[in-house]
């Protein structure tokens, strides 16, 4: 079996790519996709740890995370549609009605 360090590093890198995507992309949809990347990175960590622990807990958690991701996607896309109807933009930097 491949060392845990390898899997954890891979997970950390994908996580960081997701983090970077949230910050560098101004399209809300792409930001949201980047968040999905972060969640997947975490899922990878759960699976890798779980299989080394020999416990199913990790896989069950991933199952739950997928459900949460689905729920988040439903609500998040709903919010994006709602905001697009009002403002006709999906750019984070156009949404600065409230500041300071």
């Amino acid at each position, binding site marked *: 079996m491949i060392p845990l360090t390898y899997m954890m590093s891979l997970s950390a890198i994908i996580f960081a790519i997701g983090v970077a995507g949230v910050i560098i992309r101004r399209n809300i949809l792409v930001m949201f996709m980047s*968040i999905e990347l972060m969640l997947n990175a975490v899922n990878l960590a759960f699976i890798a740890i779980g299989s080394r622990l020999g416990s199913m*807990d990790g896989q069950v*958690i991933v199952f739950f995370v997928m459900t949460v991701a689905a*729920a988040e996607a439903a609500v998040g896309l709903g*919010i994006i549609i709602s905001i697009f109807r009002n403002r006709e933009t999906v750019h984070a930097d156009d949404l600065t009605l409230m500041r300071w």
Partner: protein
Amino acid sequence: MSPFNLAAINFVWLPILPLVVVTVAAMAVLLAGVRVDDSESEGLGLLTLASLAVAFVFTLGILGQYGVAFAGAISVDSFSAFFELVILIAAMFTVMMSLDYAAENRIPGAEYYSLLLFSVLGMMLMAAAGDLIVIFLGLETMSITVYVLAGIMRRNAKSNEAAIKYFLLGAFSTGFLLYGIALVYGATGTIKLGPIHDALASGAMGSNPLLLAGIGMMVIGFGFKVAAVPFHMWAPDVYEGAPTPVTAFMAVGVKLAAFAAFIRVFMVDFASVGAHWQTVLWVIAALTMTGGNLIAVVQTNIKRMLAYSAIAHAGYLLLGMAAGVRSGPAILYYLLGYTFTNLGAFSVVIALERRGEAGNQISDFRGLAARQPLLAGAMAIFLLSLTGVPPMAGFVGKFYIFSEALHQGYVGLVIIAVLNSVVSAYYYFYVLVAMYMQEGGVEVERLSARPALVAAVGLAALATILIGVYPQPYIASAANAFHSASGAEGSHSAALEP
């Protein structure tokens, strides 16, 4: 071995009865609201209020029980009961504030009230969780519904914007929390709180890198939910944009639930590795108090100001956490007083608010004392309590937390905190000045036609004074609640018999 070992689950219904009541109520409200017009949603609100009250009564039944239920997924102790009760109180106040507000602003009633109830369910789960996955799911249930609630005034651009900002940062933050859970799972081999507690208490962990990184990530994740600096940036915008009852619900309910889970995980289960997180919380507490208070000084919008004030109060609470296990009861007591005070303050904000934006500026409070002496008096009580002026609840809470922290030797942090409360006096007093010493402002409309709102203001004011003047029973129950959590999850935690 059959994988379906049902005997391993101890079905104990009483502890989750309140949760079931809230869930069923949410669905009932949804169904009942199918044909209800948006401007006539008061009936749904009353139904919500009634079911919350029923859940409240059932929750009282948990008091005095210790143990875990459902194969360790649910902790049954006074700690969860304490937080569930306070969360239910916060929800009831929110409904009382919403009755007229929702109808006037044509907020879809069925969705609004059922989402509120779903959110309460998530919060209560966070308080009652016995493993990290239930905490996570409770947090998501709460957050996802609150994202929607923040944006439920769909025609209002600010409301939209609040929802998307909260959603993006909330989901972003979920990633960090989940990462933390994964790493802690790796370090301890379990996600159940009791076994985690035992594994850490045995001292075998040392400075396991997985554990350390996991603690760090979880601090970040929870830090976001309690709006700690530097994870606080969302709070002012979201508080400003969300419908005001939802803002109140976020400022109180979300914070209560987040602190419930934060305290349970860190001050109970991670207590034995306190050296690994107390320093970080020390720094975050200092930043949070200072940042929140200093920026609050220049705010002109009352909701924004209260948002920064809420950040500052999170700082005082984090101070208690940083000071270690001994200040646990003080934190719980502080949260209780904070709940009533903040709910009251937001109720007054709603009373001044009218369709659209009017009433949200601090200048709108000018001359309120002359026009509505009692409303202004109540607001004065809330502001004084937030400032920490005796004999209000806020003072006793601050005094309690600070003196516990002092006793643990956190002199520097307490000095920072006391200086911060001096600064905070300035912006709270700014509103007092506007009410009592200036003229102008907005007229308050139809106060007499909004009995629920008036009741919310009055009850919150009474509670703020009562908890401050006669705090003994509340301090006792806070201490009892906190100690029950530390006792129930030790190695002697037992599965409750049905």
